[in-house]
């Protein structure tokens, strides 16, 4: 809802026909982040995250999670993403709590109670196992989150495109990512429209349940009717043309990116092999 900059001043260049000004490729398109981890190629970051996830789950005991946690802490501090990780931790807390509760009280085969209060008997093994599982969960989600938070989706898609992911794949991922915020916004608009018609959104729960159809229907119908128009709009922009889609912005893939990526993938393979062969765990 901003003041419209549509109308040019009578004296501005835009209103006089003639030479358009070519201002070159803007920096907000080719923006380069700063910091060692952030500037890593997206595929490299993904490979590292994959290694971290595999380590957390396949290396037995506390070694895996603790090792990865240390690495994450260093990287997060260096790339100024501590706050984002704290948010993830907060979001995971309900799950962590339920894991703790379940394991504390219902770990099968545990025979070392902390105390007894009638039928309720939390066990030390349960506590230990619960802590281990929660830590694994938190470290795993932090590893993924770190890669996600430091990689703009466009960079990831541009990189995938460079590596051969077709324009359809790129479009689908890009559209899917945008779909959630868009749908949320749309639901907000629809809610406004239906509330203006007297639909009750505060109040007893069964009243609110009745609001589902008036909210869901416009979302669904709207999305469906849009499909045809959006398909045509894409065709109108030559989406189905053959050949490689020009990339205006491609993240760099330097030798250190490649080296790190290969190292991570090899280490990942190593962990899997070791685990499978029974040497470890």
């Amino acid at each position: 809802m901003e003041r419209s900059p549509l109308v040019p001043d009578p004296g501005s260049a835009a209103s006089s026909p003639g030479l358009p000004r070519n201002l070159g490729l803007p920096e907000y398109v080719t923006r380069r982040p700063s910091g060692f981890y952030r500037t890593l190629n997206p595929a490299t970051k993904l490979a590292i995250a994959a290694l971290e996830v595999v380590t957390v789950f396949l290396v037995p005991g506390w070694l895996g999670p603790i090792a990865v946690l240390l690495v994450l802490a260093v990287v997060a501090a260096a790339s100024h993403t501590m706050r984002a990780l704290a948010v993830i931790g907060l979001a995971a807390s309900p799950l962590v709590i339920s894991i703790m509760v379940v394991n504390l009280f219902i770990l099968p085969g545990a025979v070392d109670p902390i105390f007894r209060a009638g039928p309720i008997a939390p066990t030390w093994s349960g506590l230990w196992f619960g802590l281990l599982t929660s830590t694994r969960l938190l470290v795993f989600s932090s590893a993924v989150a770190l890669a996600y938070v430091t990689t703009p989706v466009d960079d990831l898609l541009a990189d995938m495109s460079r590596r051969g992911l077709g324009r359809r794949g790129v479009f689908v991922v890009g559209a899917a990512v945008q779909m959630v915020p868009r749908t949320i916004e749309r639901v907000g608009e629809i809610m406004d429209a239906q509330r203006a018609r007297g639909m009750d959104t505060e109040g007893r729960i069964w009243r609110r349940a009745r609001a589902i159809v008036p909210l869901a229907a416009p979302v669904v119908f709207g999305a469906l009717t849009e499909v045809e128009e959006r398909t045509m709009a894409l065709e109108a922009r030559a989406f189905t043309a053959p050949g490689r889609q020009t990339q205006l912005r491609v993240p760099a893939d330097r030798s250190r990116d490649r080296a790190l990526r290969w190292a991570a993938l090899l280490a990942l393979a190593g962990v899997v092999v070791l685990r499978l062969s029974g040497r470890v765990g």
Partner: protein
Amino acid sequence: MSAATAARTTAAPTIEFEGVSFAYPDGTQALDGLDLRIEPGETVAIVGQNGSGKSTLVKHLNGLLRPTAGRVLMDGEDVRAVHVARLAARVGLAFQNPDRQLCAGSVKAEIEFGPRNLGIRGAELDERVKAALDAVGLAGEVDTNPYDMGYSRRKLLAIASVLAMLTPILILDEPTTGQDARGVARVGSVVAAAAAAGRTVIAVSHDMRFAAECFGRVVVMRDGSVALDGAPAEVFAEPHWPELRAANLEPPLPAVAGARLGLGSTPTDATLVAALVELAPERG
């Protein structure tokens, strides 16, 4: 309309905006210290360019937006204290995009949605639906699926569904965009009929002609506050043209013609014709 329904329609309240400011979460200032008073039964067109704050303004009337400063009063009572769902019984707002609200499989069910939420049932409900359909010219489409109708008719359907709520205050957000000549005429008759029934009618529009012809009062908005406010003849009179242009609007053609011919303020075709005929009755 049955006597029962007529009796149910309460008198329209007085609307007052007292120093209302509103800023969106991202910081955009949409309304800036706005003062406005609308008496019961008035027909008001709120005009301005895209982004001048028109839609933001009317959303304060049914509680969808709350002012970040100032107060919105209805009959002296601060609207802030009232739930949106309850304000809906007093203020009906037809949104610009009809597809945001269409939620039923038939025209009839769609129009029934609003009144049902207000507790209307049975014979009275049927009566309201029929009246609303007649008012917008969709009488033959009772069982049609809204998505089988074109966009402009869906827009009329959205207006009908708000009409059926018989709210004392009726607000239409850009009702004429995308309408053909017949559609615009329809909207005009809806406004006239609602006004005749004593309802306050407010329309947000950037169609100067529609504003001049169908409304008794025009409020020109610019940058979140009121730039001009008065009857069409006053607002579109020549002395106010610089102000209009500063708000990125143009006076309607009859006003321009009338001014050039020295006939005073003639904001509509009808007033211009009348002025000319009066001037030279021998040719009339």
